[in-house]
């Protein structure tokens, strides 16, 4: 984040600070307050949107760490989500309390991330994209065949700290807290030693190695951490839907998540927010618009609902890649800068 004029960091502590000025504090508090009272202000349909957005933010934050900050392409993210969701569901069915199942779900996803991230030590770039694709298929196979995936598990509303999560609103608060926590956690990682190591690995891993950064350690670490996020997100999704099924974790979801970090801005925390809301917004928009399109073109009516989001999403993705590869976050920076230096050009 750019600081105002006249504001200098005179100590390392200040450099690291998440929130630097009183202005930023007030902004953050206002935002949190807004989020907190949101359920009172909006309808149920929108609440669903925000819940899904929150879950997505958790998951995509993880992906952002892996791909955005560390440069490791991961197409298997949806599968890791699924793993977390399934493990969590199985645990809860076996009676584990929610607060224990959540970290365990995340952990199991993280460990699988470690395992399937190991090819990253040997391959790079598009080969890695492909091994993660393979990882997706293999994990889904495990889920479906060995863990009874397609039938799935029913997940009863869990009880957290005495609150039974049987209403949308309560789930919303849970998701809100998790999204907040995961963002803080990610920001913390990013500004610390690990975060800098990730970026070094992304930019030029061989050079980073010569500087003494253990790239093997950090590549595995980022997969672990990123997949913990995915697992937690997957578990949240399973709790929200009330059902754990393999069909909700598709390869196409993984591609959507990748699209979100591109559109939002890879390697930025705020980009996650931009990307998630923007893409989910497109999805929402499509579902609203589909009936109208169907009425206009009756011959397409049966398929529009499924196809339109895909078409619009992929079009948006391609446009962004060609014209604004650094995503909305970059655009936002430019807009802010232009306000700051108004009326000059640059």
């Amino acid at each position, binding site marked *: 984040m750019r600081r105002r004029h006249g504001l200098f960091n005179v100590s390392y502590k200040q450099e690291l600070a998440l929130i630097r000025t009183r202005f930023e504090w007030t902004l953050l508090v206002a935002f949190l307050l807004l989020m907190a009272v949101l359920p009172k202000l909006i309808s149920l349909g929108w609440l669903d949107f925000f819940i899904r957005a929150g879950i997505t933010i958790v998951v995509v934050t993880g992906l952002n760490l892996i791909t955005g900050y560390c440069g490791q392409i991961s197409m298997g993210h949806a599968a890791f989500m699924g793993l977390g969701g399934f493990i969590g569901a199985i645990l809860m069915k076996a009676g584990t309390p929610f607060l224990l199942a959540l970290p365990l779900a995340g952990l199991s996803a993280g460990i699988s991330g470690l395992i399937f991230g190991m090819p990253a030590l*040997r391959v790079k770039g598009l080969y890695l994209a492909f*091994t993660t694709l393979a990882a997706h298929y*293999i994990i889904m196979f495990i889920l479906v065949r060995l863990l009874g995936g397609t039938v799935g598990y029913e997940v009863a509303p869990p009880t957290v700290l005495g609150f039974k999560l049987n209403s949308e609103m309560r789930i919303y608060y849970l998701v809100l807290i998790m999204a907040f926590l995961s963002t803080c956690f990610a920001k913390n990682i990013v500004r610390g030693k690990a975060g800098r190591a990730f970026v070094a690995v992304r930019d030029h891993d061989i050079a980073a190695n010569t500087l003494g950064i253990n790239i093997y350690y950090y590549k595995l670490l980022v997969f672990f951490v990123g997949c913990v996020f995915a697992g937690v997100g997957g578990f949240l999704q399973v709790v929200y839907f009330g059902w754990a099924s393999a069909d909700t974790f598709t390869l196409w979801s993984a591609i959507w998540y990748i699209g979100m970090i591109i559109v939002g801005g890879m390697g930025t925390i705020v980009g996650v927010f931009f990307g998630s809301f923007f893409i989910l917004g497109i999805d929402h928009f499509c579902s609203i618009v589909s009936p109208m399109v169907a009425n206009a073109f009756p011959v397409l009516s049966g398929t529009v609902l499924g196809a*339109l989001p895909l078409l619009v999403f992929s079009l948006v993705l391609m446009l962004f890649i060609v014209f604004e590869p650094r995503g909305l976050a970059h655009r936002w920076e430019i807009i802010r800068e232009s306000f700051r230096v108004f009326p000059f050009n640059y």
Partner: protein
Amino acid sequence: MNELINYLITGVANGFIYSMIAIGFILIFKCSKIFNFAQPEITILGAYIIYAATVQFKLPFMLGIGITIGLIAILALIIERVLLRPMIGQPILSIILLTLGLGSFVRGAIILIWGTEWLRFPPLFPEGGVAIGRIATLSYPHVFFLSMCSLFILSLGAYYRFSRGGLAMRATADDIIVAKVLGIKVTRVLALTWVIASTVGGIGGALLTSVTGIHYTAVEIGFKSMAVGLVGGLESLAGVIVVGPLLGIAETLIAGYIDPLVGGGLSEVAAYFVLMVVLIFRPHGIFGWETIERV
């Protein structure tokens, strides 16, 4: 024993189709370093077009193939000109994601036009097949596959190796800047590679689905071909020709012998499992060229 031979033959036939599609894939990669994640979708697009031609419009099969080739060639040209020209020189991640986005777009278009249920072809080939000695019979579809694929692969190979156009392609694949300096119209070469790759992809998809029926999840075919390409080594056409049938055989064998034990589905994953294992030991594929990185 009979069963085994049948599995082998089917595997080889299927595998050749994977090889053929993979060759198209590799061609694009060699010449322009672009990994075409849209290839799977273009593959099944070919299948859908043939379906449309033969079932919906009731045209003869061969004409359907001709139309497929034509339409996909045009599509490839458009893609190359509009999307990929501006992207030369961009980082590989962007290009991968662009082709991914393109694939999604094609997928969306397919779903829009044809919906999401399974579509079946009417039986295109007579029942039965060609007998090979007394050991096995090669069913007609497989005869068709093998012959078409061999035809394609051989003619592609000959073109690549012996003709002037093929030489231009090989030069462009080797060092695109030098090729430019020598006066080779690299844009034309690239466009041609895209056309070839997409058409073989479309044909391959059409062939395979004529037996199994079409569904939008048939993108599997394309992804498996990508696996074949990667395992064989992205720079080696010969490697791909070897690996394809091997994978096909592995699939059919697993489907026949192991799947009933596990409850099915393992054959799908076989390709990916093999891929991961191979890439861990030989990160550039079995026959691939290692790129030497300098710091």
